[in-house]
């Protein structure tokens, strides 16, 4: 139900764009939607980020994954137990670039009565492939919105198509991202635990990103749009004087629609993790809480049981068993 619904909804979005393009709603899909998507993306993310940034971090709650820095002869783990902001920044950088936490992943299984822990790097591989190819694909697209075209986007394009299969050459990233999305989708269905925890939006967002990627691939290999016209269109959007590419096929509008939807979905839910991770208090702070005092802006006053109250209650017993008593109030 969740799975079918998610795929159906993504397909419906694609079909709507196709039909819309044929029914003369090209301006709506080609101009209004990208603007709406961008506005939601930027404004939504700014709101989220502002709210995270303005919400206080009352305590240092670093999760330490290695030896602390304590005695001079004990070798500290500088990255996994960062003691300075710079080390915490390095930890974060490597986390976001290399997904070190996922790299740690294990899978617990039973061998007879014993619980055994096997290495499990598939999720790491799948996520790394997905995120990195996504980044490269976005960078590749920059040649359509930057004039003059920077040399590195051309290089990126050439390297990506280095195997020269077909015309235009098949891009490695297109293949990898399709495979990665497929893996991420299929594991949600086949792994019973994942199927149990997965929500509709988990499937839908994957379906949406898959549809966006597939429509892009279709556009490149099967419908052959006029790239110069697309570039004029993109630059027009950026300069707020949009011109639709005159002979663009419906599949072009499908791609624009899906990407716009995806942009709008980013701040709406879990994809906001792309910014959220940088705010994660267990990962972005140095674990130096005994060396440096962390301030809680709302540290509330509390009632305590004071020594005087304690001595008052137990005075007789204290005297009897030979305790020193605060002199001024005794005798």
């Amino acid at each position, binding site marked *: 139900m969740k799975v079918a619904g998610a795929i159906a909804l993504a397909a419906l979005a694609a079909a709507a764009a196709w039909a819309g393009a044929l029914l003369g709603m090209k301006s709506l899909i080609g101009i209004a939607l990208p603007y709406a998507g961008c506005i939601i993306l930027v404004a939504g993310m700014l709101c989220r980020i502002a709210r995270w940034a303005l919400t206080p971090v009352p*305590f240092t709650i670093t999760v330490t994954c290695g030896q602390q820095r304590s005695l001079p002869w004990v070798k500290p783990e500088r990255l996994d137990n960062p003691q300075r902001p710079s080390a915490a920044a390095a930890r974060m950088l490597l986390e976001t670039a290399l997904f070190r936490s*996922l790299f740690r992943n294990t899978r617990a299984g039973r061998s007879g009565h014993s619980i055994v822990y096997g290495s499990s790097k598939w999720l790491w591989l799948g996520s790394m492939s997905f995120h990195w190819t996504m980044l490269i694909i976005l960078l590749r697209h920059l040649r359509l919105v930057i004039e003059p075209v920077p040399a590195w986007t051309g290089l990126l394009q050439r390297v990506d198509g280095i195997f020269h299969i077909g015309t235009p050459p098949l891009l490695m990233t297109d293949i990898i991202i399709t495979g990665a999305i497929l893996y991420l989708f299929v594991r949600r269905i086949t792994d019973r635990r994942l199927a*149990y*925890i997965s929500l509709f939006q988990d499937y839908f967002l994957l379906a949406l990103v898959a549809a966006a990627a597939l429509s892009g691939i279709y556009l490149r290999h099967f419908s052959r749009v006029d790239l110069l016209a697309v570039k004029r269109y993109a630059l027009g959007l950026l300069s707020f004087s949009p011109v639709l590419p005159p002979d663009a096929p419906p599949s072009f509008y499908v791609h624009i629609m899906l990407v716009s939807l995806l942009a709008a979905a980013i701040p709406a839910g879990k994809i906001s993790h792309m910014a959220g991770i940088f705010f994660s208090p267990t990962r972005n702070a140095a674990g130096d809480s005994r*060396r440096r005092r962390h301030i809680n802006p709302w540290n509330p006053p509390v009632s305590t*049981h004071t020594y005087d109250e304690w001595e008052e209650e137990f005075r007789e017993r204290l005297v009897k068993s030979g*305790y020193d008593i605060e002199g001024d109030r005794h005798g």
Partner: protein
Amino acid sequence: MAEKYRPEDLREPGAMPAADWKDLAAPMRKGTYSHAGSPKHAEYLGLPNVREWQPHDEDWKLPPDWKEIILNGMRERLGRYRSFRLFMETCVRCGACADKCHFFLGTGDPRNMPVLRAELLRSVYRGEFTLPGKIFGKFIGARRLSEQIIKEWFYYFYQCTECRRCAVYCPYGIDTAEITMMGRELLNLIGVNINWIVEPASNCYRTGNHLGLQPHTFRDNIDFAVGEIRDITGITVEPSINRKGAELLFVIPSADIFADPHIFTFYGYLMMLHEAGIDYTLSAFASEGGNFGLFHSSELMKRLNAKIYAESRRLGVKWILGGECGHMWRVIHQYMDTMNGPADFLETPRSPVTGTVFDHVSSTKMLHICEFTADLVHHGKLGLDPSRNNGYRVTYHDSCNPARAMGLFEEPRAIIRASCDHFHEMPEQTIREHTFCCGSGSGIGTDENLETRLRGGLPRAEAVRHVRERHGVNMLACICAIDKATLPTLMQFWVPGVEVCGAHELLGNALVMKGETPRTVNLRGEPLAEEGHERQ
């Protein structure tokens, strides 16, 4: 208590339920949950909605405006804790955490997967605080708050030990301990609590320690320890209590002076401090480093923790030393200074024996006894005869909080390695930052929920069994008072023949004291074993 259960019945995890979790009531089966907080103790602490009730009652006697209280409490905490807001919004449900939880591995209950434990709260966040959640409801995993959800929260937030193992593997560092802490704070707002937390907290607030020992008993217990040490070593150690002008205040988890096997670790502390010639005092007022407030609310944690700095100020000590304890060190390392500091009236701890300045605690001014002793051991300031521990084949259990909230890995190992000749590590996926909880931390180490504890402790026990079978390990060392209280039950049940001790018990056995009589027994009063002859 454990006789009720048989290992073969608890070894296999339960099956995944067919029904969707969003509609499933918590199973609330006897043996899997803890009893409600007693009115007497809740009253003493001034907690809300004090009443007689039990989790198995149909009617939990919630206050009439309970829903409003919870939702306001959520709103307030979303604004106060970035962790809470972020962790409500960024999880992608990748599932990396799923099989990292000892309770999930032991029970097989999917709501013990950290991701689902968080979804229990997250679904209500979506349903009550976000527009899409209000519109699409359960279809996108959003729920409106109901009494059934309160019961579910109670069941599963008291089936998490806040051990943070899942947080190590989460790509966003989502920490289920934060989620559980928020969940428990919310439940406590409407008087839904458990006695194993409320009673120790109230005792601690009143008398200074969890058991409610009054000052004369506190002194008697310490005198008893002094007598035992004299019998074993011929040396009279002289701890002082509430003494002004001592160089340092020594704060221990109170179990160290009354519980077995904690007391043997206590002997070890006193012997080490005597041998090193340290000028220290204990305090009967601040006789508890442990802090069950951590398992209740940040407010109660602060109220209990305040005694330590207050007492060190009153006694005029220079710095504070802390004993072997798990969650106590979470509080001291990550909360104390922020809550009750600054400790500007104290000095940075400096070892009077080696001259080492412990500048990694220059703000909190509180040092872990393993850090202190490891420094002595490293500088060769303690005479140690590890052969006295030859009866033991030792492994070491990293306690969750010193591991994942401090990174205290090498210091206790340095002490243990110097104190015994037979030390074997458990598999690497089960130690250090990967360590498995005893299954009884965060205030759920009671007899009422023994089944949950035994099941949750299975991953730890299995790792011990591995080194027992491979290396003949018969002693499980640890530096946590809750471990010392609950691991013996766990071992007896899953890995008979393995006992539990603290790092300083092993040190005390090995410690060659000036002028001591020849040792014939270890700190437990058992004859010292010859090399190669295991005690059994």
